[in-house]
């Protein structure tokens, strides 16, 4: 209650309405063996509604930790986290995650997995599942079990089961990292297509420079040890973006150099 009251201060009311997620001074320290390991330090991010943000950083820089905090799976050591002006404390269907690894329920079929989180009258559930099966192109595989479909299809199911809940923010943790190059590109195009149609706000974590440049409105480049946002890069390339275009490759090269440096 208190936090909501605070928000109706003149400054907050005047703030652009489209700001949906606001991260301030986020730190995370894990108790290590004997010492403490500082994994995230002073993360400040504002996300606008409908934005596609890529968090780019090397393995181990704390990307998954950041998403876990945003999702509410683990608490931050310090800092604040506001979604639509309300503090985030617990996991919930307003901030859904597509995990890097397979996190489908293996005893449920494709359509049962997609329907899992949707609490609605049966008819609505059926219609919505139908719609999202079609959106991710899995209508024919509706009654398959996760072990009977490919890795790319599994991630489509993972995407559909959270999109169906219309989350305010979609958190994606290297969702396509385990896929072969061709499937990965298909999935990137699918996500961009769904994003254009459904207008989600997406935080997309990746260690792949080309993927970040292809997807992002804004790239947040992360440092390792401690994990910090070193730089923010706005990608103004028109969509759809061509991986082979000269300008695209130039941006990639620049980022790659920064990532190494």
């Amino acid at each position, binding site marked *: 209650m208190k936090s909501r009251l605070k928000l109706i201060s003149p400054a907050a009311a005047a703030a652009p309405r489209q700001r949906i997620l606001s991260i301030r001074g986020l730190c995370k320290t894990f108790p290590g063996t004997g010492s403490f390991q500082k994994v995230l330090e002073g993360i400040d991010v504002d996300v606008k509604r409908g934005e596609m943000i890529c968090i780019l950083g090397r393995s181990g820089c704390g990307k998954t930790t950041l998403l876990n905090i945003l*999702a509410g*799976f683990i608490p931050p050591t310090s800092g604040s986290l506001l979604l639509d002006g309300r503090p985030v404390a617990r996991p919930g269907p307003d901030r*859904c*995650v597509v995990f890097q690894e397979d996190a489908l*329920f293996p*005893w*449920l079929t494709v359509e049962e997995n997609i329907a*899992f*989180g949707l609490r609605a009258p049966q008819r609505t559930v059926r219609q919505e599942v139908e719609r999202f099966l079609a959106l991710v192109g899995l209508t024919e595989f509706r009654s398959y079990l996760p072990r009977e479909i490919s890795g790319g299809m599994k991630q489509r199911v993972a995407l559909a089961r959270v999109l169906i809940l219309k989350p305010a923010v979609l958190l994606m943790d290297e969702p396509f990292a385990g896929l072969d190059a061709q499937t990965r590109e298909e999935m990137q195009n699918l996500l961009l297509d769904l994003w254009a149609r459904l207008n989600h706000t997406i935080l997309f974590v990746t260690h792949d420079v080309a993927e970040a440049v292809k997807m992002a409105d804004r790239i947040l480049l992360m440092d390792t040890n401690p994990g910090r946002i070193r730089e923010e890069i706005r990608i103004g390339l028109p969509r759809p973006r061509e991986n082979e275009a000269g300008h695209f490759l130039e941006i990639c090269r620049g980022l790659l150099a920064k990532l190494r440096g």
Partner: protein
Amino acid sequence: MSDDTPRRGSLHAVQPWLIPAALLTLWFAASESGAVPAYLLPHPVQIGGAAYSYLFGGPGAMPYAGRFWEDFTSSIVRVAFGFGLAVAVGIPTGFFSGRRALVNRLISNTLNALRAVPGISWLPLAMVWFGIGIQTTVFLVALAAFFPIYLNTASGVRQVNPILFQAGAMLGTTPMRRVFAILLPAAMPQIIAGLRLGLGIAWAYLVLGELTGVPNGLGAVIMDARMLGRIDMIVVGIILIAVLGRASDLLLHQLMRLCFKSARRLS
């Protein structure tokens, strides 16, 4: 998948019977040739006759004629009560011990010590406590069946991939739904393994319990037959327990598959 062709199917239906058939043939040959004398192991035909009389004979025609159904009912009731008790205690205990480290620390030491005690050492104590009758048998059956059910349930719920709980939490599951829609289905294969092991042991301890001088039951028949020197009836009793044990195992497995989606799909 490639096993679905009709020929493969019929071959698969025959395969489980190959070893029983071979054993029977061997037995037959051993008896016919006189290699194994009848006082050690009677001829299969004699066993068949004894079994027939035990199952279908008119009462009073011969010492054991027609007694089967009464023995069968007594034994089944004892197994059912004992196994039921083991399930009722073993699954919740295993569940909490698998999910709560505190519960596990509290009870696992004690339970694993008790588990090391062979069932037969409980028999004299059980007879003092419960006397001769159904209670002693039910106690022994429940005690023995409890451990595999408890251990497998605990390890099953402990090993559920935590990412499934994260997925459930972000999809908005209530605590109740987390247990019944995620935890139990995910642990189902191991819970079933525990139940099947427990049921098998239940039959073993049934016979132990019935050795104590109860008037009926399959174990009682075996003990009785030993006293009367009716080795054919001992063998009949052994075979019937084997058949019933296997049948109840199949029944349990099918029942679980019928009742739980995860039992059908995770195996």
